[in-house]
C-alpha cells in the first residue's frame, strides 16, 4: 500500500495549497521552506522541540475516559485527548514553540502573529518571552474588544498588540496585516502563522508541529485499551488541532476521521463558518487554494460562529484534500448544539471545554449514540474554556 505522502514539493495537496503570494514574499517563503526542510528531520532541533514540549508545555497530554458522559449519552465510549491541560490552555502552544525555535535558528530576533480569539497570540507571546524574542501580535479591533483578558495576557508577556481597523476587523484582517508587516520587515522578522493555512510551507509545517497530538494518542490508546479508536473527532476552523490528531491516523485503516465545522446560526441561514460542509466553492486566499466562503464576485464573505477560533472563511488546504479523497468526513455543529455540549461536559465530567472544542464534543455525542457500547470515539479536546466564560455568561444574560 502506498503511504500518504502530502504535500508535493511546492506545497500542493492535489489542487489545493500552493504558494499564492505577491512576488515581494517569494524570497521570504523560499528561505523559510529551505530552513524548514533543513531542520524538520534534524535530531538536535527535534530534541530541543521535544524538550520544550515536555518541560514547558507539560506533554504528553493525557487521554481521559469520559465515563459519565459516555453513560449519559448511552452509546460508544468517549475518550478525550486533553490538549486543554497544556501550558496556555490549548494545542496552539505546540506549533508556536516549533516555529519560534526555527526563528531562533534563522537568526530572526522578532516574531509576529495574527490572532482571532487571542489563543494563538498568547501562545506566541509566551514562547517569545521564553526565548527572548520581540513579539508583535495583530488582532482585529472587534476581537480586541471582545477578548480583553487575552489582550492583557499578551501584554503581561511583553508582546505589543496592534488592533487592526481594516475590513471586517477580525481574524482574516489580522492575517492580512501580519502579512503586510512580514513583507516589510522580512529581514529580521519571522511570521508565526497559527493554523494549517497560509502559503507553503506553513500548512505542512504547522501540521508537523501539531502531529505530536495524534502521535501520542496512538501510543496512549494502545496502552489504555489495546486498540485504536473507531472514530477521531476534532473541530475545524483553519484546522490545526484536527490536522494534528488526524495526520498520524491517515494511514491507519478503519479509523474514521471527522472534522467538525461551525454551523453558527445554521447552514441554511448563511451565518456560519463551515466552508467544507456547506460546499463552498474553491478559491484563493491567504496564500493557498482551498474551499472558501465567498460571493459571486469572489469577495470573501463574513462568517459567524459563537466560537472566535472557528470564525474563519477558509480551511486548511489539507482538509480540503482529505475531504475530496474521502479520507476524512466533515460535519457542522450549530452555536446552540455546541453550547449544550459545553454545559454537558462541565456538569458530567468537571471539565470546562473551549467553545471550539465544544463543537467536536457535540458531534461526538451525536455519533456515539449511533454506536455500540464497546466502540470508541476519541475527541480532541483542543482547549480549555476559561477564556470563554465571558461569552457564555453574556449568552445567559449574566453580568460577571
Amino acid at each position, binding site marked *: 500500500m502506498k503511504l500518504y505522502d502530502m504535500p508535493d514539493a*511546492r506545497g500542493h495537496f492535489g489542487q489545493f495549497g*500552493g*504558494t*499564492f*503570494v*505577491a*512576488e*515581494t514574499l*517569494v*524570497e*521570504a517563503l523560499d528561505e523559510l521552506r529551505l530552513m524548514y526542510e533543513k531542520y524538520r528531520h534534524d535530531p538536535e532541533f527535534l530534541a530541543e522541540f521535544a524538550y520544550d514540549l515536555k518541560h514547558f508545555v507539560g506533554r504528553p497530554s493525557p487521554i481521559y475516559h469520559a465515563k459519565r458522559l459516555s453513560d449519559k449519552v448511552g452509546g460508544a465510549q468517549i475518550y478525550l485527548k486533553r490538549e486543554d491541560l497544556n501550558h496556555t490552555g490549548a494545542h496552539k502552544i505546540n506549533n508556536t514553540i516549533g516555529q519560534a525555535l526555527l526563528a531562533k535558528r534563522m537568526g530572526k530576533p522578532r516574531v509576529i502573529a495574527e490572532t482571532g480569539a487571542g489563543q494563538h497570540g498568547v501562545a506566541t507571546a509566551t514562547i517569545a518571552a521564553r526565548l527572548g524574542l520581540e513579539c508583535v501580535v495583530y488582532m482585529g479591533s472587534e476581537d480586541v474588544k471582545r477578548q480583553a483578558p487575552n489582550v492583557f495576557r499578551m501584554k503581561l508577556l511583553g508582546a505589543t498588540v496592534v488592533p487592526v481597523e*481594516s*475590513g471586517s476587523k477580525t481574524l*482574516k*484582517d489580522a492575517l*492580512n496585516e501580519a*502579512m*503586510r508587516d512580514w*513583507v*516589510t520587515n*522580512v529581514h529580521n522578522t519571522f511570521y508565526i502563522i497559527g493554523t494549517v493555512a497560509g502559503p507553503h510551507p506553513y500548512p505542512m509545517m504547522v501540521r508537523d508541529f501539531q502531529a505530536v497530538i495524534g502521535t501520542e494518542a496512538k501510543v496512549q490508546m494502545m496502552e489504555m485499551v489495546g486498540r485504536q479508536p473507531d472514530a477521531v473527532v476534532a473541530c475545524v476552523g483553519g484546522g490545526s488541532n484536527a490536522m494534528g490528531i488526524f495526520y498520524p491516523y491517515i494511514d491507519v485503516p478503519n479509523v474514521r476521521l471527522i472534522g467538525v465545522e461551525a454551523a453558527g446560526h445554521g447552514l441554511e441561514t448563511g451565518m456560519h463558518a463551515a466552508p467544507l460542509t456547506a460546499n463552498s*466553492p*474553491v*478559491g*484563493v*486566499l*491567504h*496564500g493557498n*487554494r482551498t474551499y*472558501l466562503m*465567498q*460571493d*459571486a*464576485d*469572489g*469577495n*470573501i464573505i463574513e462568517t459567524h460562529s459563537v466560537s472566535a477560533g472557528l470564525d474563519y472563511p477558509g480551511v486548511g488546504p489539507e482538509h480540503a484534500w482529505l475531504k475530496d479523497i474521502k479520507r476524512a468526513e466533515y460535519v457542522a455543529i450549530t452555536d446552540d448544539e455546541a453550547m449544550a455540549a459545553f454545559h454537558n461536559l462541565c456538569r458530567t465530567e468537571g471539565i470546562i471545554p473551549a467553545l471550539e472544542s465544544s463543537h467536536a464534543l457535540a458531534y461526538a455525542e451525536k455519533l456515539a449514540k449511533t454506536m455500540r457500547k464497546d466502540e470508541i470515539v476519541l475527541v480532541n479536546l483542543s482547549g480549555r474554556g476559561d477564556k470563554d466564560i465571558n461569552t457564555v455568561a453574556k449568552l445567559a444574560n449574566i453580568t460577571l
Partner: protein
Amino acid sequence: MSRIQATFKTLKQQGKTALIPYITAGDPHPKHTVNLMHTLVKNGADMIELGIPFSDPMADGPVIQRASERALVHKVGLTAVLEMVKAFRQTDQATPIILMGYANPIEAIGAVNFADRAKAADVDGVITVDYPPEECGEFVKELRARDIDPVFLLSPTTEPSRIDLIVNQASGFVYYVSLKGVTGAANLDIAEVSQRVASIRKQTNLPVGVGFGIRDAVTAKATAAIADAVVVGSRMVQVIEASNDENLLNNVATLMLELKAAVDAAVKI
C-alpha cells in the same frame, strides 16, 4: 502587436517614458470611474491600471485597501469592472487598459471565462498580484491566446534565476516594485532602483515599468529617467480620497499634469 506593446514602441521612438496612473474601479463611487479614466487620458496617461476591488488586498497598504472598501460598498466586482472598461472603450479605443487585482475574483469565474470576458471588454493586460508564475501557467496561456498581456511583478528580492522564469511568462512589460513592503510605503532609493532596473534589462527586452513609492514630480522625474513606465498608485488614490464630487476630476487632472510634466522633463539615462 498588442496595444501595450505598440504604445511602448511609439514612446520609445519619441524618447519618452510612459505614465501609468492607477485607480481602483468604483472608487470613490462607480458613477465616476469612466469619467476618471477619460480625465487621466486627457491629462497625460499613456495607459491606465484599473484595480479590481477585493475584500482582502494583502499586498496593498491602507490607502488602496480603503479604495477597495469604498468600491465594495457599491458592490463593484469583476463583472462591473469589465462593464466600465466597455463603457470607456466606446470613446477611447487607443489607451491600453491593464487590470490589476487578486486571484480569487478570477478563480470565482474561472480562467477561461475571465479571459473571454476580458477580451470582449477589450482589456489589454492583467496583473494578478498573488499569481506567481509557478501557479498560473494555464491562466497565462489563456490570456496570451487572446493577445492579452500577462504583466508580472518583480521585487527587490527577486533572484536572477527567478527573473528568467518570470520574464519567460510575461509579455507587454514587467513591473518592478521599487520597495520592499506594500503599496503606499515610505521612500524610494533611486540609486538602488536604477541598479536593479539595469540588471533586469540584462535579462529581458521587455519594457520595465517601476512603481511603489512614486509620490510627486521629483520621484516621478527621477524614475522616468531610468524606467520605460512610471506607475503612480497610492498618491492618485489619496487625491481621490481627499476629493468631493465637485472637485474630483479637477484634482486628479492637476496631479496628472504635474506628473506628466515631470515624466516628460526626465532625461533618459
